[in-house]
């Protein structure tokens, strides 16, 4: 009996889950360690200039090599912000339409379509972006904006190829819309019916009631935004096809640029030729790693504080 009791104390799920949890945690730490140790040579050689200068001197002579990825950092942030500006209004209106306005059958079709779009390989967006979206945006957005608004400093340069921060941002916005809207739609659909009734019972019009209900799902919008930002800043292939891949720190949205992930993807092949480039690419990855970490933690903090305030 005694031995049996002892054995019963030993929870089988503890035995099965602890190693898995430990493994996930170690994997995370291990990756961080690899990134830090491999980027140390770059920091030792160039200091913070790796992040805060815009140079890319790949040279056969190691002494002349010098790298600063400011352009890529700038491009990542710029394109991701444009992406959110595109994706948020699309996602919110899509969610309201699907939940409140669309007839049942259309609702099903729309939901399936957006789920399919979320699952498409990103290269499909990339090709579509490069061959269709970029020329389209150049013809119908960039040129008209340049023609009529060129007195605004950031629009004063004539768009050349169309491959630009703007094209990348719009493409990213389209790509992350299914993800952001999945979160927003889910939250909007699960608003307790009693709050809908409350809004209408106060003599609110449909528009006013909808506005209040959208306010109710704000935490979902925040978490959707975080999810979207995380995906946008990490997206690689599609972006590198449309962003133009130029070392350019400019507020002009129609000029070509780089993003951290597209920089790593396009320069990785060269890095074996040069002595110091690999370490710089690791430093670039580390930056992306940390940005992702900070954004997620910040988002979780905001969400948790909000939930505490509004919990029923």
């Amino acid at each position: 009996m005694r031995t049996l009791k002892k054995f019963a104390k030993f929870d089988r799920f503890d035995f099965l889950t602890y190693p898995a949890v430990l493994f996930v945690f170690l994997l995370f730490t291990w990756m961080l360690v690899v990134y830090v140790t491999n980027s140390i040579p770059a920091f030792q050689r160039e200091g913070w200039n790796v992040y805060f200068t815009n140079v890319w001197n790949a040279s056969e002579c190691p002494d002349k090599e010098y790298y600063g990825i400011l352009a890529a950092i700038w491009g990542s942030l710029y394109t991701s912000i444009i992406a959110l500006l595109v994706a948020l209004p699309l996602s919110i209106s899509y969610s309201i339409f699907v939940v409140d306005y669309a007839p049942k059958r259309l609702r099903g079709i729309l939901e399936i379509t957006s789920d399919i779009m979320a699952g498409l390989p990103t290269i499909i967006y990339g090709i579509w972006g490069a061959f269709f979206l970029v020329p389209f945006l150049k013809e119908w957005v960039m040129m008209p904006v340049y023609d009529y608004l060129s007195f605004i400093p950031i629009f004063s340069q004539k768009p050349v190829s169309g491959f630009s921060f703007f094209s990348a941002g719009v493409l990213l916005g389209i790509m992350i819309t299914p993800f952001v809207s999945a979160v927003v739609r889910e939250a909007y659909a699960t608003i307790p019916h009693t709050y809908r009734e409350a809004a209408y019972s106060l003599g609110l019009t449909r528009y006013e009631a909808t506005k209040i209900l959208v306010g109710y799902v704000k935490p979902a919008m925040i978490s959707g935004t975080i999810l979207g930002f995380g995906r946008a800043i990490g997206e690689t292939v599609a972006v590198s096809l449309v962003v133009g891949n130029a070392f350019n720190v400019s507020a002009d949205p129609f000029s070509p640029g780089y993003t951290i992930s597209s920089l790593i993807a396009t320069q990785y092949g060269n890095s074996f030729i040069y002595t110091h480039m690999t370490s710089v690419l690791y430093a670039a990855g580390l930056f992306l790693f940390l940005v992702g970490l900070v954004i997620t933690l910040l988002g979780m903090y905001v969400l948790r504080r909000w939930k505490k305030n509004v919990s029923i």
Partner: protein
Amino acid sequence: MSKYAIEVENLNIYYGNNHVIKGINLKIPQKTVFAIMGPSGCGKSTMLRSFNRLLDLNKNARVTGSVRLFGRDIYAGDIDSVEVRREVGMVFQYPNPFPHLSIYDNIALGLKMNKLVKSAEELEGRIEWALKKAGLWEEVKHRLNDYPSGLSGGQRQRLVIARVIAMKPKVIMMDEPTANIDPVGSKKVEDLIFELKKDYTIVLVTHNPAQAARVSDYVAFIYLGELVETGETGKIFTAPGSKLTEKYLTGKLV
């Protein structure tokens, strides 16, 4: 003007093919508490939602017959449902102040959206007045900008009542307002109902006959979508005209 706040004539409500309310006639006098009682699922909440056209939210619901609010048929073609809801306030079974709005903003919402106040001072004054009327002012005056999550169930329900009173409606409808709050909170809400009938017509839906007996002047008993009987509360409770009512009041109706 009609001496009745609400007159219901041959009211039928259908959910799809489901006949929920069957040819009900009712007259609800002004400035009284009119209780609609019946077992759960008998259609009383559905009927209540036809009095402020909240049933419009349900695309499956269909209403025939007429509901007259102070003599005006609210289902007539030229009537705006938003207009109706402004005059008929509603308190729900689940205390539902908006969790993402502060106590202050919860009350301000209806006032602002319907442009019922002209200035910021008037808004502030009206909110204080409504909270005092709902007996909640002393408990929340120092934390008007807090979210309602800090309030108890009973306090939240009184906040909802304040939200309704602030709009100065003609009729206040309450759908089992004490079903989800504790006995102390319930007692306060019942006392409040008693207080409010001086100024408002109150329609109270309840599945609790004892509550109907405590607070109402008139009562209607609904069973399976049909009106069994209606009249003065004292009369119905002492001498019910129907065997069914008697069984319900004595708890023998299953």
